[in-house]
């Protein structure tokens, strides 16, 4: 995950390149975080179609599940069976789905310019940007927070020499949060939110803007702090296959 300074610069740059219509919306930031998750039809960004998007706001120690965002998106192509097995969404389940553009529009209105939070967020952002760039004129300008990065920092403080397992199940276990059924975008977004609340309580949260923030999220080497330059992208997490990012 890029460092905060880099992100701030990127945010300004992208905001400038946004189409006029979206600039006010994506400039808005009330300081809340938004935990997001997308279910997609593939793990390769180029092929992936977004099937559902979920987003839930975090305000202080509160996860606003009562006012969360969730939508199904009508797929453009037929889904393969392997995929249906993973996310459990059958073709008929998409009857209530929105067309992609409409869903993205609503998503943007929910998140505004707030900081986005996720687990291996870069993938979600990459898939979203693939569709959003033509609409917005630029990629999402939002700050990004990788929950596994904060988890890494927390574990690293206690086990500087150990291998730090960043798998979803391990994080849930070590943070003592309840395991919701997986592969449902809303549940995953809520789980990420709970992970963040638990880490925040342990002193590993987003510090005020521009403060140096650790960046390494995946490898077990010591995190780089205060880096003004974008660090190399993290090695592809297991979930991502070839890791073809933007």
């Amino acid at each position: 995950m890029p460092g905060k300074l880099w992100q701030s610069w990127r945010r300004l740059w992208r905001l400038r390149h946004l189409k006029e219509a979206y600039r006010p919306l994506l400039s808005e930031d009330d300081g809340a975080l938004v935990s997001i998750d997308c279910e997609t039809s593939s793990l390769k960004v180029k092929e992936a179609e977004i099937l559902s998007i979920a987003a839930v706001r975090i305000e202080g120690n509160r996860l606003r599940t009562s006012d969360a965002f969730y939508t199904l998106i009508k797929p453009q192509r037929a889904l393969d069976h392997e995929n249906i097995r993973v996310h459990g969404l059958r073709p008929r389940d998409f009857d209530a789905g929105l067309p992609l553009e409409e869903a993205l529009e609503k998503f943007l209105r929910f998140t505004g310019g707030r900081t986005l939070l996720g687990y291996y967020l870069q993938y979600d952002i990459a898939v979203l940007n693939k569709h959003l760039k033509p609409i917005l004129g630029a990629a999402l300008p939002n700050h990004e927070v990788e929950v596994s990065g904060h988890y890494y920092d927390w574990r690293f403080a206690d086990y500087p020499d150990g291998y730090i397992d960043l798998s979803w199940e391990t994080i849930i276990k070590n943070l003592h949060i309840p395991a919701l059924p997986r592969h449902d975008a809303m549940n995953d977004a809520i789980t990420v939110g709970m992970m963040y609340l638990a880490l925040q309580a342990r002193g590993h949260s987003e510090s005020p803007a521009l403060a140096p923030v650790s960046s390494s999220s995946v490898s077990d080497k010591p995190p780089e702090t205060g880096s003004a330059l974008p660090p190399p992208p993290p090695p592809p997490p297991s979930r991502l296959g070839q890791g073809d990012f933007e």
Partner: protein
Amino acid sequence: MATRFDLSHPPFDLLTPAEAQALSDSADVFFFCDDQEILQVGGAVDSLYLVLKGLVREMAGEEIVGVYGEYETFDCRALATGKTFHKFEAHEEALLCAFPRQEVLALTDKNPAFGAYFFATVSDKFGQLAQKRDRQEWQNLFTAKISDAGFRPPVFVDAVETIVGAARLMKEQRCRSLLVRDGDKTGIFTTSDFRDIVATAVPGDTPVKDRAQFSLLSCDKEDYLFNAMLLMTRKNIHRIVVTEKGAPVGTLAQIDLLSYFSNHSHLISQQLEMATNVGDLAKVARDMDALVESLATQGMKMPQLARLIQVLSTRLMARLWQMVAPPAVFAGCALLALGSEGRGEQILKTDQDNALIVGDGQNEDDVAQAADHFTEQMLRLGYPLCPGGIMVSRKEWRHTTQNWIRVLQDWAWQSQGEALMNLAIFLDAETISGPASWLPVCRDALRAGLSDDATWFSRMALPIEQFPNQKADGGFWWQLLNREENVRLDLKKAGIFPLVHGIRILALEMNIMATNTFDRLEALVSKGILKRAPADDISESLAFLMHLRLNAGLELLRGKKKLTNEIDTASLNMRDKDLLKDALLVVKRFKQTINQRYQLDRF
């Protein structure tokens, strides 16, 4: 679709799927660090919290008064008032689900069962038990059939019979109504008709059909009892005719209705009298279990329930003894129930504790054979063997009066170990069958042989200290807070035994003959040994511990498991946890009292 948050635990399991879905959708999630305050004393409360993970403690000042773990809900009291009287803090990082108070309140209006959960908790602790009983009785009333109530078989009389003949028949059959057959018509003739007969001086040879009522009010035997009750109330009559496919098969009197709804015990005692073999008795024994279950869920108080069961099981054992013992043995021996059965505090059949006082001149082999047979058949009735072997089948528990006196004095002299516990158990004996005067003779002789040696009573009282306080000692909440695995509490060790034994020794010292603990307590109060208030506390605490043990026992029986004295404290609801804590404090105070009185510290 299942709800986002797990709402399958009480009270949310009372919601319909749609209600649960809506409530789940209205919830936010909160996270609190160790020791972080969640609700402050007197603060406004706008949510009902469900613990998803972690532990929350409820504090009154510095004292912990409640602990909430996963799937538990707080603060139910604040739901009604909108503010809390205690402080709630995260004990261990707590992830909470917060339901808006207004949403929950709206559901309590819409869903009465869900509402009852909260508002019953708010109401007085014991008042709630009474409410629960009312609900249960109303349920019975609406679901019970006339055939469940055990209506009386009809006694028919011919229409031409005289009223004097009818009166004789009623006396003979011990019934208060007759069905009068007149061709294909049926009438009813009841004792209340005699009032008019006497008042208007009707001659005794008048045919009964002239005075009988032929416009019968009847209900089918498969009809609801409730309808029978309505009919009686509406027509202001005391009995109706029960029909099956239109033909009269019996009568149902108001008194039958009443006793059905108070309890079914009269049916069981009737069956006991009519039983002719052990098989019949085994059926009665099973019915008794069902009776216990039904009375316990109806919220009958423990001392009363225990005594009712004592009456029935005493008769059950007496009937069994009568069946298995030759007449000479039956008449010439006194069968005793010992321990909890003797005190009238055994509700479920935990084990058989019994003994025999053998009359002089009995044939020993006959007695031994009958006693063996008795123990064996008791097992068939569902009374497990006594692990300590305190059963008539063992000759150590069969003596003549003279020998018993010697044995008792020997135990008293040893006053430790097994002898001490044997003596304690014998102090609770009650005569079930046979000459009732022998047991008091044994007891008086024992009492007379005791010196008023303070050391002796101290040694007798010592076993109340044999189970140290570790688990019971106020650390109960801490144990929960420390998340000790499987917080099991042995109710007998933690509370029932210390109370029962302490009171037993006090009663022995004061020469109180009662065997029931509640009776002994009363006697101790009237002798000025215990004050009224602490005695009431002890009696309520004992009753509550018995109630917990009974509920746990019934649960074990439903699962076809062996009875134990342990309960899983995790399975208790908040109210019971509260009461349990109170009860354990009473036990602790009582142990201190006994400790001081008998100076147990010196051992």
